């Protein structure tokens, strides 16, 4: 994936209110835009993480199924 495709996604997240951004200066003295999670974003992240873990756990259980379990 190209790095540039990140920017429309960042804008979308900002519109959704999960991240906020502001201009600042980077460690090597460059002008840079800093993105940070908002409270809503943090909550969203938690939900998404939980969902993802749940999905991953379910899929993992599929892989752990052995032939004799189904018999």
């Amino acid at each position: 994936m190209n790095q540039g495709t990140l920017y429309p996604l960042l804008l979308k997240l900002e519109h959704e209110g999960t991240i906020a951004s502001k201009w600042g200066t980077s460690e090597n003295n460059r002008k840079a835009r800093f993105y940070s999670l908002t409270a809503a974003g943090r909550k969203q992240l938690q939900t998404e993480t939980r969902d993802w873990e749940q999905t991953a756990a379910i899929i993992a259980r599929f892989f752990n199924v052995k032939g004799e379990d189904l018999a």
Partner: protein
Amino acid sequence: MKLLRRFFIRLTNLATRRSADQRLREEMTEHLAFQIEENVRAGMSLTEAQRQAAIKFGASEAIREHHHAEQSLPLIENLMIDLQFAFRMLRKSPGFAFVAIATMALGVGATTAIYSVIDATLLHPLPYPHPSELVRIEANLPGVGAHDVGISIPELRDLQNSGIFQYVSLSFYGTNNLTGSAQPASIASKSVSPSYFWVLGVDPQLGRTWDPHDATPGFLPEVVISDGLWKRAFGADPHILGKSVRLDNDVYTVAGIMPASFRDQGQTSDERNADLWAAAGFAGDPAPPPMRGTRFPFETIARLQPGLSPEAAQGRLDALVASLKKQYPADYPAQSVWTLHLTPLAETLVGNVRQSLILLFGAVGLVLLIGSVNVANLLLARASSRGREMAVRQALGAAKTRLIRQLLTESLLLFVLGGIGGFAVLFCARKFLLQFVPENLPRLNDISIGWGVLAFAIVVSVAAGTIFGLAPAWLTTRLNLTATLRQEGRGGNGSRQRSRLRHVLVIGELALSLVLMVAAGLLLRSFWDLFKVQLGFNPTRVLSIETSLPNPNDPKTDIYHTATQEAVLLREVLRRNRTIPGVEETAVSDRAGIPLGHSQNDRRAVPLLPEGQEVKSSQLPQIDTAIVSPEYFHLLGMTPLRGRLFADQDLEATPRVAVINQAAARTYWPGKDGNGEDPVGKRARLGGLGRQRPEWVTIVGVIADARTESLADAGIPQIYLDIYQRPAKFLAFYVRGQVDPSAIPAQVRTQIQSVDAELPVFRAETLDDVLSSSLSVRRFSMEMVALFAATALLLAALGIYGTISFLVNEQSREIAIRLALGAQRPDILRRVLRHGLNLAAVGAGIGLAGAFIVSHLMAGLLYGVSPYDLSTFAGVTVVLTAVAIAASYVPARRAMRLDPITTLHAE
């Protein structure tokens, strides 16, 4: 939630046009610079570092587009762009834009104007809560051919107790003399049952109305007045409640004031503008004792139980009628077939103008249709000239749907601009236009041009724009790309389809305008016939002025109770009126005697039975009566045919005499062989309805028929009684002569009030005005339809002109070749003209078929002309054809004058 939030952010971005583009670009530049720095640090050369960074980042323009799509609403943005483009296109061809917008403004404006009238009258005829529950109850005796015979008090009570209705009320319109204020006034009033306002469901703004279950037999001592009267006569006195007013010399107290917005229901505008309501049980003085057979010629209105449909209510009412007939066989003889009929109140109020308004709406709808077709035609013509543009855009990859969307935006812009323009003109000219609306239209005062009407105008123009913009847009984008690009936008498949559609549209236009012109022609002929009709009386230089004598509830207090008492007043006023300078003749009659000037309420039909003829049933054939003074006939120029007119020796003490018109002689004295017998000297029994006792009158004379009752009908039987033998309360004084119509009312008022200062004097009108206002609805619809027809004809002429000139343009090369090969110029002219004539012939053929249907439907609006009147149909067809040929002649001449050399060189 999130979607909504994003939508609103996008919407605000769109609205504020805050561009995040700059920010993105800066961010991307920083990003790249950072990446390059890193690459250089990793040991790359500067150019290589830049290249690798750009590859890693991706196509920056595509990202910017994505970013833009994310932050805004592409659909609306496209629409904005399309609109901007459409505006530019319109500015580029101002002539086209002006014609199209003006056409639509005309069509939508006219449609909206008629709609605003219909909205107030047909769609919202009853300004009361739950109007669908309101009904009018009509009693009929179809067995003896009598309709709307009225209702008796026991019958009213049966209805009130039937459980079908919430409330039932009688209502009777009249006028009362209000005295005590500076100038005695005659005010429009209604005598009603105490439940009247409960039927209508309207509460007073101040005070109260009556208890709906009040059972007082006579008049209740309290009255309700209108907001208008409160302000006019009492200066909006806040302490009016409980104060007394004197009406016809009886004293009442004011119990309530209706809201300013309240309009009464009723058939005439006088009735709807009633100013005072008095309640009575109609079971005691001044009414006769309640008997089942004593019917009052009053109107009965009622409010149905909630949720009961009129049909179901009619079913229950029929059952009630059947059981009453069984219970009281003597009062309801089987042969007269007493029935009660329910009609939704809304229908009874607008019945007489409904047909005219629907006709007008149909006519104006056709104008709108023709206008839209014309604009569609113009759009099609432009489609040919924009063929190349469309081809280029499609070749460059524009999707067809996208192009159609853009073209549709353009046509919608035209239509909506036209619609708004039409509405704006209407809004500015509303005062001016309302003058042309006849005064007797119900709810005239409620016609308003507001948001509802604006919404209607916009909906109509959007609908028309979509319907008539879609086909041209579709045909414009349907192109054979290679052929179009090579041939510079000429020829090709789409072009043939377009010209076929253009022909269909022009034929449709011609057909529609023929229909309108036939309708207008028939109305014009009806109106003209009515206008030119032999009146049978002479209205010129005659002025009528009304007064009314008090009618107190107790006859003993009435100073004008007998004809002899009244004669003193009448003779004195007549004598004084004759002394007014310029007055040549004077007369007096009751209100029913005013030719064409009285409303339905004043028409008094009473049974008349010639002596020696058998009573066929309990109901007698009825005749219109008028009470007049001896000079009346001469003043109005009515022709005596047989016998004598009234004379000075006819007094209250002498036998009652009467004069009838020819129609009455024919109807009531048909003779044994049907040739008629001389009614002079015969006696007849008059009256016997309601509380009046029948009386015997001797026919002393016959006069020629005159159209005093209805312009359209000369043969309405009429009987005249002598005012010195039979007193009348509502009087009209007439003066004929060289008088100033603006000064005379005051002069007559002075004369009348110098005899009795308590008498109100009002409504002075010349008979010519009365005559002309009796034609007002007809004149209004005739003028409107004629105007619409003329517009339609003009539009159709423009349409055919446009089509033929376009055809000539398109075929100029062919024509030039023909000319170069030796074709004769007149042949070219004929060829083009024939094309126009063919279109006109097909259009006229279809239009004639449509006109037959329409004229059949409007037969009820015609007078003296058959709906299939040959001369009208033929004349209109000839006019249409002539206009079509004239419109084709201009481009045909251009074709004839074509110079082959320049034309062929130019290609």
